[in-house]
């Protein structure tokens, strides 16, 4: 269980997160939505101990402040926004980096890596170098790296951004199979909202404006208020209406 209490993050004078309270249960799936600059990525960064914050974040009742990085990585894995890389690590070497929190050994031939690679559907890419992958392939490799960490929680920052239609489908398929992992996914993608179960967290200006299921009668109104736009819905599926 992740317990966030009074979380405040400041960048200089700007307040990115304002006195936020949130609880994420074991195995709970949460889609985090909000306008650009609303504090979504900052919330993930705070959970990962990458920014200074006021307030408390505790993990199973224990504060994460001052916890060793390797210990934290065993609890929370991170799928950053897709990046481009000049480095020529093979997919296997890249994914094996996820094992670091478990052991400093190299373990490139470890069976966990092979299992995760086939779970994510990129087993045939294992000897390719990461600088030659397509966006969708790299995104899956990044997810695979987070999965071998074998953590209880996984945080994903816009896993379908910059992907084509098919890659988006494939990545969402992979993500929808995270059954027992607590998951927080930052996404602007209505497809993600439609495809993935779990509850939705809307934040705006560093504050939570909604937390609940997407079939909550309030939800559609709240999401339109939050983004200041119209969103259509047919039978629980959300879409951008043509004007």
């Amino acid at each position, binding site marked *: 269980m992740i317990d966030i209490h009074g979380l405040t993050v400041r960048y200089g004078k700007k307040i990115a997160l304002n006195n936020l309270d949130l609880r994420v249960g074991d195995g709970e799936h949460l889609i985090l939505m909000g306008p650009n600059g609303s504090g979504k990525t900052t919330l993930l*960064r705070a959970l*990962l101990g990458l920014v200074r914050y006021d307030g408390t974040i505790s993990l199973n009742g224990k504060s994460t402040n001052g916890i*060793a990085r390797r210990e*934290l990585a065993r609890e*929370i894995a991170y799928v950053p926004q897709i990046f481009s890389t000049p480095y*020529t*690590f093979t997919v296997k*070497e890249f994914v094996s980096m996820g094992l670091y*929190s478990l052991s400093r050994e190299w373990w490139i031939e470890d069976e966990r890596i092979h299992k995760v690679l086939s779970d994510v559907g990129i087993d045939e890419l294992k000897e390719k170098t990461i600088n030659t992958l397509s966006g969708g392939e790299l995104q899956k490799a990044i997810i695979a790296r987070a999965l071998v960490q074998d953590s209880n929680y996984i945080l994903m920052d816009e896993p379908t951004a910059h992907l084509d239609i098919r890659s988006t489908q494939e990545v969402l398929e992979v993500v929808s199979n995270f059954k027992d992992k607590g998951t927080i996914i930052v996404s602007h993608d209505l497809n993600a909202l439609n495809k993935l179960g779990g509850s939705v967290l809307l934040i705006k200006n560093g504050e939570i404006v909604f937390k609940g299921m997407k079939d909550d009668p309030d939800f559609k109104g709240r999401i339109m208020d939050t983004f200041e736009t119209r969103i259509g819905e047919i039978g629980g599926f959300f879409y951008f209406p043509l004007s």
Partner: protein
Amino acid sequence: MRFSNYLFTVFLVLLTVFNILVSLSIGPVHIPIQAILKNIYLYAFNKGPDWTITTILFYIRLPRIVLAVIIGMILGVSGLVIQTIFKNPLGDPYLTGVSSGAAVGAAIGFLVSPFLVPVLAFVFAMTAVGISFLISRSDGEVNTEMLILAGVSVSFLFSAVASYIIYLKVANLRGVIFWLLGGLYGATWTDDFWLFLALMVIFPLMVYFRRELDIMLMGDEQAKSLGVNTARVKTVVLLISSLITSLAVSVVGIIGFIGLVSPHIGRKIVGESHRFLVFVAPLIGANILLVSDTIARSTPQGEIPVGIITSFIGAPVLIYLLYRRRKI
């Protein structure tokens, strides 16, 4: 891929041994490699070696050759980790202000007493490094972007001071310039002993950290989220490499290009991963410096500063590598 990497590492070790033998045979007195091997055999089994040859080899040539290998390894491994930590292909071991600091110390040393040159070079190199580090600390962590800029600024400042002292005060200009360009002419077994100890600090440490160094290539944020204590790795790696490089510079002067070019050559052959690179880069550095120093001490003009030779060899190699990369 992995097997060929092992093979290449072994090849480099053999190449180093071969270059040591070649270098031993070259000098004012030419001693053929067979004669060297025979003399080693006679010496080892107490069968009356040629003492003239033994003296030349053991007291004159070998200390210098060993020093070239050790310094080459130190510069190669420091250059590698500096390039990794800064994620900058132009990184070299002098980046944090080592060389210009050492230059100030050496200039003052030449002014006061030549015996003080190594000590002052070391003290001022560490001073420059210390200032760069102080400027670039933020949030209890070394900010590498700041450190590059701080290192460059501090280097300019110390270079200006060194130039001022050398231009206005130092009588032995040739001596200073020779020192600034680097040379192994003063090598003794004592130097070898101390620098070997230094190598035995930095080399195992970087071998230990090679897993972290690999992951840190992916950037600080990812490295942290994967569990790497980046603040600790950076601080330890940068401080130790600056300290050991300063020590090397204080003994042999500022030998350029080896720290820059050795990791690049290594990467072309064994790839990015530090798993092999941490062995390959220093061995390449050792071979470049050994060959360069052998040339430097046997030119028709007599001894010339080895830094000239390393740049003559290193620059075209680097240009070739860049050219190859452009074509891909």
